[in-house]
């Protein structure tokens, strides 16, 4: 084990979408950081079709990669069977299902907690009591954050109404923008920006927006009230460490996306959000961190009301 510690861990990532996609960018960023820190040697394949995913997994496993990271939402079963064929390789996969011994661990972007908090800010600050939400596809990962956000908003403002729209693409900012425009026409004065394009529409109309997963406040000055950020570093670093020490085993790494572990965080703009709102949010944040408050998880597809 002493010898191994000096050597870099070989890590490969397989993404079904390009690395700019918000969700994937967080994994990519954490792995890049680990690579820069010298702990790992990192390679990746992006935009891998689901049909090809299994082959890529096997190729990386055959090539001697020690840790393989990715997302297997469309091919849960196949991925697990590949992992079973390579028990020496560690797999850490975004998944809706549980881990499988001995080597298949799972994670997910559990940032419903900060989403709830951003919802509180939005609920407190909307004047029209109408909030617009534009999503890509109505999948659990998206739905649960939207619901947490809606719960947070209703918590502080029971009268708030939501407009919900899915654009049927992960990557069509012009289309997302159009959906956002339509909502603002329908009275939304705060936009929940799940996709690229929504905040752009908000900027054009001088409306405020709530960020998700990544921090875009610098790109949209005076627009982003707050964002629920996802940090993959706690998850990735734990996995790398476990591989390095030879202690990697099948586990659910989902919890490391919780606020408690630093996997999720809230960032709010004090220039835009009034202090009393921030105070109320901070209080709720403490409750969450102390385990006094649990944000509800709801994977159902959200609808306008």
């Amino acid at each position, binding site marked *: 084990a002493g010898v191994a510690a000096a050597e870099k861990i070989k890590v490969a990532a397989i993404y*079904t979408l390009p690395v700019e996609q918000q969700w994937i960018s967080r994994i990519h960023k954490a792995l890049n950081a680990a690579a820069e820190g010298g702990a790992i040697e990192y*390679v990746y*394949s*992006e*935009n*891998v*079709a*689901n*049909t*090809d995913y*299994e*082959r*890529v997994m*096997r*190729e*990386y496993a*055959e*090539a001697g990669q020690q840790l393989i990271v990715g997302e297997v*939402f*469309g*091919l849960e*079963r*196949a991925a697990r069977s590949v992992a079973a*064929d390579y028990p020496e390789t560690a797999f850490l996969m975004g998944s*809706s*299902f549980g881990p499988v011994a001995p080597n298949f661990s799972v994670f997910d972007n559990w940032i419903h907690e900060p989403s709830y908090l951003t919802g509180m800010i939005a609920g407190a600050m909307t004047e029209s009591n109408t909030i617009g939400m534009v999503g890509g*596809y*109505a*999948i*659990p990962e998206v*739905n649960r954050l939207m619901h947490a956000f809606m719960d947070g908003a209703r918590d502080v403002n029971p009268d708030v109404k939501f407009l919900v729209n899915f654009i*049927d693409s992960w990557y069509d900012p012009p289309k997302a923008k159009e959906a956002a425009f339509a909502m603002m026409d329908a009275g939304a004065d705060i936009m929940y920006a799940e996709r690229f394009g929504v905040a752009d529409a908000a900027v054009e109309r001088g409306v405020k927006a709530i960020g998700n997963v990544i921090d875009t406040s610098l790109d949209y000055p005076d627009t982003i009230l707050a964002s629920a950020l996802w940090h993959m570093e706690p998850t990735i670093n734990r996995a790398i460490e476990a591989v390095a020490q030879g202690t990697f085993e099948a586990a659910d790494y989902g919890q490391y996306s919780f606020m408690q572990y630093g996997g999720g965080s809230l960032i709010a703009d004090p220039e835009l959000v009034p202090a009393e709102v921030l105070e109320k949010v901070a209080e709720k944040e403490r409750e969450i961190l102390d385990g006094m408050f649990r944000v509800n998880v709801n*994977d*159902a*597809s959200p609808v306008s009301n």
Partner: protein
Amino acid sequence: MQIEPRQSQNPLIGLLIPVASALVALALAAIPLAFAGADIGAAYQQMWQGVFGSRFAFTEMLTRATPLIFTGLAAAIAFQARLWNIGAEGQLYLGALAAVWVGTGMIDGPQVLMIPLVIFAGAVAGGLGMVGPAYLRTRFGADEVVTSLLLNFIILIFVQMMLEGPFKDPMGLGWPQSEPILDSAALPKLIEKTRIHSGLILALVCAVVAQVMLTRSTWGFRVRAVGANPAAARHAGINVNRTLMGVAMISGALAGLAGVSEVAGLKGYLTADLSPGFGYTGIVVAMLAGLSPVGVVISALFIASVFVGADSMSRAMGVSSYLADLTVALSLICVIVGGFFGRFRIRFGQGAAA
């Protein structure tokens, strides 16, 4: 400069040209490789390894080729009748949807019953997906290029709707995917621990049958006649509309079988990202094969080899994986240009020397 058809078909040229085209394509692929700063010699070696380097690699290539054979046949048969079916992608999904509809527990029975049933359901669903555009063409004159193309979008959205609605797997933790195909309805694997499945056998059988039917049967005769000159075909007593509807059904059915094969042979359940454009690539496969069913098999294997090889190479060399598609595109263009030089020669000047 003049372009002239070659008079005699030199068999050596017929063999040499595809090889030369492939070599030129590989040479061209060196440009992006060099641009990305990769070791070119090693890259070619990796590419070869990626297809022929192991049993696994080779079966992967066959797995990738299987749906392309089906969609290639779908395009080849329709195009023979000048029925421009651009909707194989949608028909593929219809076939897959029908396969999971009957194959995930609606009924259960022994393999000998379930497998043909799933195949039949998928074929019929895919076929109906093309019968619609064909009907709109024969009845209203609505161009089938447009209708079949737009249907792709509609069907894909419809599949998403089904996967979030009635077809959603209650055990899928909310993810929009169908329930798994029953074991009795799944197409058997051909080799354990690989992904290659009996869909490939079905595809090869379809290709042979299509070849025989097109060249040997009166049905194939009618199809070719309607495609080459519908007015003369009608004048000669061939029922053009009925022939077109039949072709539409069969073409769509073949595309539907691609869906069945992917879902019941490979993945086991349906998601909305089942196909990375197999339907569209099928058109390329068919045209590359000169619309010959047996040729479709060869060109599908070729396209799959280039893709799988280049994809694997891009990973081994650490260059962007978009290189795989780029190499396929370059190969495709080189091969069609090569085909041109097989059929024609270019003469310069007055050519009085002869």
